[in-house]
């Protein structure tokens, strides 16, 4: 059995990230500055969107009662998130 997950998290995440990044770039251009944290925030949101959508897929499987599939997804998400944390700490 395969669960159908809502793509909203992925779409909204990427779209929100794009809007924030574009806004940051516009402010940078208008004010003539090189660095702005809001741009980085937008980029981090874009990068975090695929893993967030994977977690929602896991939740969807859990809701349908497929505990095994949900566990597989959550373990995968956990491993990927651990690699993110390793990079951030490094």
């Amino acid at each position, binding site marked *: 059995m*395969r*669960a*159908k*997950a*809502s*793509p909203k998290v*992925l*779409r909204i*995440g*990427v779209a929100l990230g*794009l809007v924030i*990044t*574009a806004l*940051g*770039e516009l402010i940078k*251009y208008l004010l003539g500055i090189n660095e702005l944290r809001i*741009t*980085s925030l*937008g*980029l*981090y949101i*874009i*990068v*975090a*969107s*695929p*893993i967030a*959508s*994977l977690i929602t*897929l896991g939740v969807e*499987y859990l809701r349908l009662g497929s505990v095994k*599939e949900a566990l*597989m*997804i959550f*373990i*995968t998400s956990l*491993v*990927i998130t651990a*690699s*993110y944390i*390793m*990079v*951030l700490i490094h």
Partner: protein
Amino acid sequence: MISELLIPLVLVSGVGIGLVSAMAGVGGGVLVIPFLILGLGIDVRVAVATSLLCVVITSSSAASVYLREGLIDVKALSNLEPTTALGAVVGAYITLTLPPHMIKFALGILLLYVSLTMIKSVIKGVGRGVEGTYGGTTPLRRLVGATLSFLAGLASGTFGIGGGVVKVPIMNLVLRVPMKVAVATSSLMVGLTASAGELPYLIHGLPNPLLALALALGIVPGATLGAKLMGRLRTRYVKLIFSAILLYVSTQLVITSLMRWVS
């Protein structure tokens, strides 16, 4: 830094890249990277970081469709993605550590291989894949798949490509996943891998957001148009033209990096 005046040109180029890539049946990364390095003359590390960001954005549109259709294969994804993501992180650190001309040379060799393989497949007419049955997966196959996937992730993080061109055959030929499901699963995996590989570059402040945004905004409609045109055009010729472009840019990359090495 590139001039803001170039952004419309980048947007139009993104449409072209999306169009050609979709018709040739590959991801946009293999053309984005040479375009950024040779076309705009930007640093290899910035180009890789920007391309990976672009991959995350563009893959999300395809992945969201497949998520809604329920075509993602959880078993294949869980088997392959942890090692792929790890490979992407390692790859990113390789690019951040090695001299840029070495990365450029290795990229040239990789693209040369891709173009020659594509020419060979067009001439021989191969590459249809197998219709998987989910019956042939063994622990050994899963181990082989995970190992090969690490290499796909490594290539993704090092060169800024999506790596779907490697992941789909691994799923289809090694794990016996049906082609359509393999393509769908790969679309989500490409985004996950690119996001893992992008993180080290992001921490170093390397991606150019404006370039990534302009390219992605061009690639998405370009790829949609390319997918629609694919049925009307002879894909054999499109693939040959694509291979010729790739052959040219890969040779350029190898030559320029060798010249840098010698001087």
